[in-house]
């Protein structure tokens, strides 16, 4: 039986087919979620006094911060899109012995995202 051939999966498997690549990108959006947390911790820490907060605020206005934010924003939006798209396969609901239309669940989640986003921006800007 030792003459059976095995073909171990190479580490580069996720580069071989577009759906695999999109999957790996989706998983790596978690790095963006991670990368944003030091900024949140810094925000909490610096809000204690005006001098520290000025340093934080000026950092946010600098070019380095803006570029990092652009990268994180792209990944965060991709995360949101994929997360919403996958929601109906985890959340399978039944009402009166009929399955709730998966598109309704996707739509509701998307609406929730939009209203929450508007809410957050409104809270800060107004």
């Amino acid at each position: 039986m030792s003459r059976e051939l095995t073909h171990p999966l190479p580490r580069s498997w996720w580069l071989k087919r577009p759906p695999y690549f999109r999957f790996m990108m989706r998983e790596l959006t978690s790095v963006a979620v991670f990368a944003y947390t030091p900024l949140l911790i810094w925000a909490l820490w610096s809000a204690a006094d005006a001098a520290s907060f000025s340093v934080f605020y000026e950092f946010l206005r600098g070019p380095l911060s803006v570029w990092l934010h652009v990268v994180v924003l792209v990944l965060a939006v991709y995360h949101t899109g994929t997360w919403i798209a996958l929601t109906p396969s985890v959340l399978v609901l039944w009402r009166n012995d009929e399955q709730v239309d998966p598109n309704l669940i996707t739509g509701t989640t998307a609406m929730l995202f939009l209203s929450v986003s508007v809410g957050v921006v409104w809270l800060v800007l107004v």
Partner: protein
Amino acid sequence: MPEQTVLEVYRYLPDEETEPRFQSYEITYRDSWVVLDALDHIKTEIDPTLSFRWSCRMGVCGSCGMTVNGEPKLTCETFIRDYNTETIKIEPLAHFPVIRDLVINMQDFMEKLPTVSPWLITDEDKPLEAGEYLQTPAQMARYKRFSMCINCMLCYSACPVYGLNSLFTGPAALALAERYNLDSRDEGTQERSDVVTAHDGIWRCTYVGECTKVCPKDVDPAGAIQMLKLSYALDWAKSLVLPGRGR
């Protein structure tokens, strides 16, 4: 009407060679031909040494799964006319040991299937006189999709998690576990949990989702596994709040 194409076929003859190779066959095919027809034509008319599995030729038996141009397919329902590439590459299903040519060893899958107890489990056996275990159409609707599996193993072939670690219980077996967990007549959810919620069970799955896309019977194993994760995780959370419940 007849057209020409080249099939580039993975060959491995264990008695004669140690490495696999690709062999090209130029064939004249008809519009109505599926890949399996072409392989059959090659075997009967050109090269009788070519080996492959098939049986029903109508997408029911699940024997003729192969990799066609990089994707796992049932070759009996994959039409040659749908490929406008110059050559069509035929390989055995990925992630399984190759016995010869396009024939893979399915032992691992066959051993995994019964570990999830894919049959009705009840706390007590009803006496025969008590009659059938009745079920309404609505109750059946909850699991029907997951019951359509024909064990063709395309999902294992599409799953990189299984490709990297063959200890993973895998899509079809786990979907079948959920099929019985969702069955109103079944009381085996707890009994299946040891295997299903093991480290190499549902928690291994990272939801690549390709198992669902390649499934010829629209079973959605990826969805079944996420449903299993959610229901067992909620059971676990409930057992914290209400100790003494199961587990």
